[in-house]
């Protein structure tokens, strides 16, 4: 009897859940003008198009030096944005964490900065900064920097909160100053976690850098946009392929580092 009631209730919940999902899907399809059947129908066409147009030819390979130069610029930009954001985030993280925070107001301030800079998408930052900084690497760098500060501060606050309090307390008992506690107890404990987050951020930033590049006209995103708009699809394929190789290589390196340190 009881089991039957529970089962019925379960069934009801499943049905309500499915209905909500279906209604939301229908509404979204309606508002965006997305036709599922059309979408499915174009998929094979799209894939055929990709295979018949997006391949690398001898001619496009001649552009490889320029593309590589842009790619390296993009990678360096992502790394620079991440490392400089790390420095800022460590301070914000220390202010925002419950373990090391000294002052409630500062904690709230740190969390607020992190939340705002994280939740305004990188695209918006790129467009806002483009207005005053113009078309150069610094615009892309700053857009990535602001987004990274938001994300890393949240990650660092979590890592610092997880670090054990006993080491901090022990040092406090010896009369260590605030910076000694941070430097000798908090940072050593969180460093592996922090490096892992930094590496993750670099991977994300390289992908975002392409997007920011398209908007701000810098780096590999600009090369892609240029070849894309001049319908040079072989060069587009080469750009895409070089991004893929770069991203996968960086992922492999950081996975290797993570394996050792975590």
């Amino acid at each position: 009897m009881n089991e039957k009631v529970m089962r019925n209730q379960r069934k009801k919940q499943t049905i309500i859940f499915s209905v909500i999902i279906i209604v939301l899907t229908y509404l979204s399809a309606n508002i965006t003008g997305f036709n599922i059947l059309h979408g499915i129908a174009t998929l094979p066409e799209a894939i055929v198009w990709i295979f018949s147009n997006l391949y690398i030819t001898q001619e496009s390979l001649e552009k490889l030096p320029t593309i590589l130069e842009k790619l390296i610029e993009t990678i360096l930009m992502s790394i620079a944005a991440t490392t400089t954001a790390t420095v800022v985030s460590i301070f914000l993280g220390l202010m925002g964490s419950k373990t090391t925070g000294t002052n409630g107001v500062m904690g709230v301030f740190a969390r607020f900065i992190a939340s705002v800079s994280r939740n305004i998408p990188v695209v918006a930052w790129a467009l806002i900064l483009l207005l005053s900084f113009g078309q150069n690497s610094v615009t892309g760098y700053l857009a990535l920097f602001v987004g990274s500060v938001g994300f890393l501060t949240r990650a660092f606050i979590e890592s610092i909160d997880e670090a054990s309090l006993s080491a901090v307390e022990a040092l406090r008992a010896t009369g260590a100053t605030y910076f000694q506690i941070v430097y000798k107890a908090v940072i050593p404990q969180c460093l592996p976690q922090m490096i892992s987050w930094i590496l993750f951020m670099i991977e994300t930033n390289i992908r975002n850098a392409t997007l920011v590049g398209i908007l701000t006209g810098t780096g590999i995103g600009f090369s892609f946009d240029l070849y894309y708009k001049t319908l040079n699809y072989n060069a587009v394929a080469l750009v895409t392929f070089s991004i893929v190789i770069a991203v996968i290589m960086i992922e492999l390196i950081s996975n290797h580092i993570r394996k050792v340190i975590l």
Partner: protein
Amino acid sequence: MEATTYIKRTHDGRITIKSGNKVERVMSGTLTVLTALTIMAFIFFDYTGLDLGEAFPATVYNLKTMFLEPTLSHFSWGEAFYQVGITLGLAFLATILGAVIAFFLALMAATNLSKEWVSKTIRIVVAFIRAVPTVLWVLIFAIAAGLGSEAAVLGMLFHSIAYLVKAFSESFEEVDQGILEALRATGANWWHIVTHAVLPSTFTYLLSWTFLRFEINFAVAVAMGAAAGAGGIGFELFMASGFYFDLREVGFITYMILVLAIVLEIMSTRLKNRYFPDSSAN
């Protein structure tokens, strides 16, 4: 460089002692390399047309105008909500379709439910898809399928599938091996195992991951509107800043995106705390 002994000495004869273990060396090595690359980056930056003395005050002024005097001038409140609806719709479609497809692919990618070569093949394909930035997928589909919501959803779908297959298959692999064995012993077929053991024990995880992806997809949908002409609030943002140079409108749109993103983040943090109390990764 003594060939006779195996002890390395410094030039004044002292034995060299390596400080720390491998972990510390790798960590300090990583940090050193990153610092060096950062310095290189600043040297090689393209500073064309940049005047920092002018740009910083201008940014401060722009930000002040944006955030303190937000107004709408090119469209109405109703239109603004409609555009936000389009962005949410794109994100929702990409997420829900991605979740359904990823569920089946993840079943094939999970090592405890599938053959080794199948799971390896899927993993490699997924890694490749993930490595191509979403915006490139959308732009590529835009030529192949024509500009519009189809291209945007298909492009975002690709990335969502790749992300969710990884997350889902990891959840499936955590299912207790004993349960699977017990069901296999009763003669249950593969589909029975999936619906009666794997799905019930991982459902909440799948739901949370899907919601997390929805949160990401919202930001991606804004980006696609701006960079790939997919429509929605992102496109309005692009128009306001790139064509009308209307800072007040940019400010208004940014506020809208910010509020929605914070609401989504609060919801997903709640889900995360409820269902993954002890994991902090991703």
